[in-house]
């Protein structure tokens, strides 16, 4: 579904991504983790072309993201994305947030879009918040709306860029619950996160990044059981000490 080959990117002198290669198969959940500044967020933003890259290739469902002839808006409409800071549109109600791209990008009728919004809001447990504005919701509620907004486009894959990092601890689980359910339904997911519990529970593979490199790319059991690289071992021992 998602193929990343030899991806390379620099910001001036800073080498953000160094020949990164990995893939996400259809129905697979891949967690990307690593210390801050390791390039995880940049990598995931390259997948739908939000970040340009210097060399290498990314294909999503057989379509090359870096190809100048690719209709990027059309491709992005098929890939859902959830951000660290939710990024709901503050001037629209929850329902309008979920309907905007359905109507303007997919050309759905208003009734059709609102019916879809209602069913997705029910699914994330927020039917009673449909007419509120994002600023009136808690962080956890906003992130669940953001997930519903992405799902409304019937995506072939979902990208999550640290979806719980901006949340208070007690709100993290309500968002993770929705994500776990999504994974169990067979959604193709690439998730940048520090939530190792989530990785253990639903990830098929874990990609560990450090200093712009993919240091380890292993199935979940072997990543947690016997990480090969010293850097991954050090990262895991620090992060799992407190779990």
């Amino acid at each position, binding site marked *: 579904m998602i193929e990343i080959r030899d991806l390379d990117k620099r910001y001036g002198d800073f080498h953000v991504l160094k020949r990164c290669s990995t893939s996400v198969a259809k129905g697979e959940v891949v967690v990307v983790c690593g210390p801050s500044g390791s390039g995880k967020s940049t990598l995931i*933003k390259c997948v*739908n072309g*939000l970040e340009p890259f210097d060399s290498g290739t990314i294909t999503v469902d057989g379509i090359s993201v870096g190809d100048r002839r690719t209709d990027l*808006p*059309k491709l*992005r*409409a*098929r*890939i*859902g*994305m959830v*951000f*660290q*800071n939710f*990024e*709901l*549109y*503050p*001037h629209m109600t929850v329902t309008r947030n979920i309907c*905007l*791209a359905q109507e*303007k*990008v*997919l050309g759905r009728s208003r009734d059709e879009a609102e019916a879809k919004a209602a069913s997705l809001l029910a699914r994330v447990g927020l039917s009673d918040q449909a007419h*509120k*504005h*994002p*600023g*009136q*919701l808690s962080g956890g509620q906003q992130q669940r709306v953001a997930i519903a*907004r*992405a799902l409304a*486009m019937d995506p072939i894959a979902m990208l999550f860029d640290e979806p719980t990092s901006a949340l208070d601890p007690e709100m993290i689980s309500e968002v993770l619950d929705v994500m776990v359910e999504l994974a169990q339904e067979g959604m193709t997911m690439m998730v940048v996160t520090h939530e190792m519990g989530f990785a253990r529970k639903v990830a098929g593979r874990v990609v560990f990044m450090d200093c712009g490199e993919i240091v380890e790319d292993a199935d979940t059991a072997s990543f947690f059981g016997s990480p090969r690289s010293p850097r991954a071992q050090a990262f895991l021992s620090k992060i799992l000490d407190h779990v």
Partner: protein
Amino acid sequence: MSYNWNWGVLLQDPYLGWLISGVGWTLAVSAAAWVIAFALGSIVGVARTLPNRFVRGAATAFVELFRNIPLLVQLFLWYFVVPELLPEDWGRWVKRDLPLPEYTTAVVGLGFYTASRVAEQVRSGIESIPRGQTLAGYASGLTTGQLYRYILLPVGYRLIIPPLTSEFLTIFKNSSLALTIGVLELTAQSRQITEYTFQGFEAFTAATVIYVVITLSVTAAMGLVERRARMPGFIAGGR
């Protein structure tokens, strides 16, 4: 000080008529100039945020040209100099056939000057929206045009309603400079009443009160707009 107060002069013929006509021209100059300022300022302000370097450069040049020359000098330039610089046929048309030449010149001059200021506010509004909003819009498949139409402009305008209100008020006050090129607006009429009656205190008091009534009405109207456009739970909108 021996001064013969005579407030009644303001209600006498023809002075009352002059005041009313002055108010009419003040409103006509300001409203038309505001339409130009808002439309052109929005286009230039948006252009300054676009990725294309040439579009951005042209918009920046517009802003720097029109905000760095005193408004009074700009009005003189539009009125006395620009017609001479135009190709001969156009220049002759401007000087001979342009309808209401003083009024039109004042509207264009005031409109362009204020557009440069509105443009900077529109730009600052758009640029104060977190970059994540743009990413979220693009990620959902919106094109750049749709992103501006549905997200950046609606939010950006909401954020700049307070400074935009000040700009709108300033255009009414700046419209008084139109008297220098011969528009008989409120200030010009007050001066004319003074010259005819020597009742300067009354005439300019009347002008002052009328300006304040106009600007306070605009402030109230913009306050209504601000309340209607507020984003619930958002910092700038209050709860």
